């Protein structure tokens, strides 16, 4: 089967939350000798980009996005072990976590997955992460980007305190914030560097931030 056809099958399996279909397409791609990195970026991640668009149009909601992510992971499980050493390059190092006081993590987990697929090395600090922990870990791993998520207005206000702490520890680190209550106006007010309205946009934004810093 031609590569383009396999990639479309993989893409459609992700969009159709078909774990088995994604897995089989990934196995076929390997069997045919095609590049697994292409399969990941154009098949699986491509499918999640479409999912992101469907989410923005409110045709897909949280359950559908989570199911699509499971299908993508089914394909990733097949392709990742076949990546050549040099292909597992890092676009940058990211710390990600849900802000102190907040235990919601659906969005954060989707963003983490997209960043990993997009070639970033991601350190996930989990939920309810104290401000000091964000700062310590960002310094320890020499993070290029710190991603902070919140689901509630009340906890989002903590980002306003956290961002200056991160910048004081490392003025060059880029801070990306996101979550249900976060808007571009708040990104500006809190002096964050980046924002992604959905997981589908996050890789482009993260690459922009890394490029801007270099």
């Amino acid at each position, binding site marked *: 089967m031609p590569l383009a056809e396999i990639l479309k099958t993989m893409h459609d399996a992700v969009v159709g939350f078909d774990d088995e279909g994604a897995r089989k397409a990934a196995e076929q791609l390997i069997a045919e000798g095609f590049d697994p990195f292409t399969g990941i970026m154009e098949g699986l991640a491509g499918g999640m980009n479409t999912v992101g668009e469907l989410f923005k149009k409110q045709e897909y*909601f949280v*359950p559908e996005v*989570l*199911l699509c992510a499971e299908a993508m992971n089914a394909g990733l499980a097949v392709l990742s072990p076949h990546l050549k050493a040099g292909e597992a390059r890092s676009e940058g190092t990211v710390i990600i976590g849900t802000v102190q006081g907040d*235990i919601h993590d659906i969005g954060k987990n989707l963003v983490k997955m997209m960043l990993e697929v997009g070639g970033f090395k991601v350190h996930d600090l989990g939920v309810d992460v104290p401000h000091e922990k964000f700062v310590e870990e960002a310094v320890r791993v020499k993070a290029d980007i710190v991603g902070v998520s919140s689901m509630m207005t009340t906890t989002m206000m903590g980002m306003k305190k956290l961002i200056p702490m991160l910048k004081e520890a490392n003025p060059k680190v880029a801070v990306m914030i996101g979550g249900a209550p976060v808007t571009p106006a*708040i990104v500006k007010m809190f002096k964050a560097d980046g924002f992604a309205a959905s997981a589908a946009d996050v890789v482009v934004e993260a690459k922009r931030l890394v490029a801007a810093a270099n």
Partner: protein
Amino acid sequence: MAKQLLIDAFRGKKTSRAPWFPYAGVNCAFHINEKAEDFLKDPALIAKGVSTTAKLYRADGIPLLFDLSVEANAVGCDLKWWADNVPSVSTHPCSGMQTPAQLGLKVPTKESGRWPVIMEAGRQTKPLLDAMDCAMVGLHCGPLTLASHLAGVRIFTDIYKNKPFAHEVLKFCSEVIAASAQFYVDMGCEIIGIVDPVASQVKAESFEEFVTPYVQDSIKVIHAAGGTSIYLICGDCTKVMKNVCTIGTHGFAIDEQLNLNYVRDMARKHGVGFGGHLKLTMALSLGLISPREDAIASLASGGTEGFVLAPGCDLPYDVSAESMGQVLEAMDWYAENYPAYPETED
């Protein structure tokens, strides 16, 4: 203050002005200089905070609590407490795909979890609010949100992949929240709300299958007691707006993300009341938009037929009296300049 205006508006009726219903949960603790955790654990502090805030805000109605962890805790989930927020539910007993029945979870009684504190708080608070002609509103967790507390994130994929399990969890949740509704009826709450924030995160077909059936027991309890029922939902619920309007409650409330003109038209089409939608983040917390102007815009859109002026969601702990004062100014200015405008003119 005018309790009956609030009841009438939530039932979709015309009113002489839009009633005012501030969702001051732990914000009540702020106004009596108490930490949220201490406030929520002490009936006397709840009574003091709620009555103080109702007076400060000139509220027509105020929740006794705005805390969606109560039901989960009452069936055995652990909580993490905060100084400036409601507790978070930190354990999810059904997340390993064991049903509530298999785990031996029980429908709460008035002795379960924090209910003894809440019942006593209601007993102390009711007469204080009655004296101000302010409705004491009981808010309990909605079924899908409670299911997400019990089963964790998996409930969102279980509604596709493991439907029988999802239905069993939700059936149990419907019994739990019906019990909560009865407790609030017994406390004398004239208005009882079902608060289901995560329900905006599913599509209309999923809402119809996994939310609507599981609020009916609670609604029956409220209506049997002659109470007024409302359904509160957060997030962009545009795609499930029709479901919300037809869920069976007298009225509903939405958050700041929606277009209030659209919400108003939908509510009136279905003959229900609607509440909202002051911008918590942009106006009341951050002041990026003037709270006064935001309130005027809401009052103008909402009108005086079935509309209740309310924040988009639970007020953050430290929202100041000054910010809310701007909302009160807006209400006074609007009433003076647009008396009974335009719907009550015959």
